[in-house]
């Protein structure tokens, strides 16, 4: 399903304008950009979302009253849907070419104005069976800390894989390996995934 259009693009990520106001795709979710001409599918993980004025010079101001607030504000001010925009940033984590999944940066950035799409469960399973892309997520530099983006991705993938505990264990071990030299960072990620599970996993690995 098409969910946005790329408005900024680089070799490491892109910014897309969401088709739905105030509803960017979930933080950490896997999205894709199809390039039929190259027979390629580029994958990215949503790293932040924001809703701002269409014109950068116009700041949002308070609109609520005692009786009009929240969703009702949009009904009372129908122009808001046209002067606000929701955008999301995504970090590139790999691509599918010639039937094979690669978990490194694609040779070219995805083209400007191309559509961003959701990823079907089967495709998501296929991509997340390997976790090399965690390294790309950890090297991400943006408004949200890479540790939180990684944790959000693990939560999302775990959910979309149908609460796949085996996958979660593998992911936690992979994260523990990647962050073995940074105990605080490791705990930050594990707690952000699930405080209870994190304690148990950390205990099992003798990290606590």
């Amino acid at each position: 399903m098409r969910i946005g259009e790329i408005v900024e693009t680089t070799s490491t990520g892109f910014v897309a304008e969401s088709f739905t106001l105030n509803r960017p795709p979930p933080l950490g979710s896997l999205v894709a950009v199809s390039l039929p001409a190259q027979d390629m599918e580029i994958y990215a993980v949503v790293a932040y979302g924001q809703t701002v004025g269409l014109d950068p010079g116009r700041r949002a101001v308070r609109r609520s009253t005692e009786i009009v607030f929240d969703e009702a504000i949009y009904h009372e001010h129908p122009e808001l849907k046209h002067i606000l925009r929701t955008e999301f940033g995504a970090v590139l984590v790999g691509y599918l070419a010639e039937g094979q999944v690669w978990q490194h940066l694609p040779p070219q950035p995805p083209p400007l104005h191309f559509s961003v799409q959701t990823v079907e469960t089967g495709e998501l399973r296929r991509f997340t069976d390997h976790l090399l892309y965690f390294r790309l997520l950890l090297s991400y530099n943006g408004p949200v800390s890479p540790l939180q983006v990684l944790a959000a991705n693990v939560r999302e993938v775990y959910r979309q894989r149908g609460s796949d505990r085996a996958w979660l264990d593998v992911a936690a071990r992979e994260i523990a390996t990647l962050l073995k030299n940074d105990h605080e960072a490791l705990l930050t990620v594990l707690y952000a995934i699930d405080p209870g599970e994190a304690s148990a996993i950390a205990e099992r690995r003798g990290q606590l």
Partner: protein
Amino acid sequence: MPLKLGAVSEQIEHMAQAMAALSPAQEQFLEQAQALLRSIPADALRLKLEQQRQRQVRFPWLVATPHGSLCGAILAHPAPVDFCVIGVDASSVPPDRHRSVRFYVLNVGYAALTYGRYADAVLDAESQLYFRDEDLYLFPEKRDVPIEGTLLNARMEVESLQTLQEVIQHRAHRSSGERPPIVALRDGPLILWTLQSEPQEVQDKLLYGFLQAMSSLRQSGIPLAGYISYTDSRDVANSLRVWICQESPNECEHCKNSKRDLCLALAKIRDRDLFNFLATGERSELFASSSQILERYGEHRVDFFYLNVGGEIVRVEVPHWVSADAEWLSLLHAVIYDQSRRSPGFPPYPPALLEAHEQAVITTTERRLIEEMVERALGLHGQSVLRSAKDDSKRRRGI
């Protein structure tokens, strides 16, 4: 820095002191003026203004003829459940006489905001570049009367109303079933007083399109209003001056009237201050403007009222076919007040006009871009754009 800010700052201080010293006296005169407004019978003032007119006394100022009581205050009705406000505004890139190619750009922005059960918004603009003789000159066959300055502004007003009319027609074609009431708002006056000093044939040419668009709106059943924020008008205050004037209003220097001080103070009082007794949501009674250009408006002759939108007294101008229709006038009053309630700022400003302005505005970057696009396009066709030496030297600013 060539601007001597030190000197200016000293003068700013003097100005502030002078204004502060003046303000208690002005307050007193304002109270006297409002007492006068309450005491004058509207019929008697109308009669006096009419007599002066019959005697062909030319007022040195614009005066307002009251249609009702001078100090009447009418509260806004609630706006309908479903309605639409269409605001329109325009801006231009004027022709540059320092450039070898002559053209101008008009950008008319509009915002159609629908409220109620079918809440929706359409924000857009119509942009057009004009370069042909018939666009550049009012009389192209003689290449006479170039459209620039005041005439370009008037042309912009005409385009605004025509775009408004087109937007409404387009909506009428699209929608089926019962149409919610629509109100059309223009940013600025409906009285194109800047054309007053132009020759009659110039006025005819420019007013034709403006009045045609007004006729179309009337036929479509859409009340139109010009919304003037922070109005400088003194029409009603001037009528008070006529009322207290015992001699000719043209011979102030020989005046021996006991109310001369009040008369001189009235010259400095703006109608927006005079009507500050209106409560939020209330409007004044209607007044007819004496602007000379209105003699050419026919059925579209403009009346106006003042309205407290909450934080500001604004002037609203309406064609006579709106002011004469109680239902339309009431709808317009209700909708404008409702717009102020929905305004994101204070003092309020109608969102339909705010968004129309945002669509109409041409930024400095866009102006530069247009210039570059013209130069590139002409270059591709082997034409170079020459600039005057003056313009060139200002751009280079060589040392």
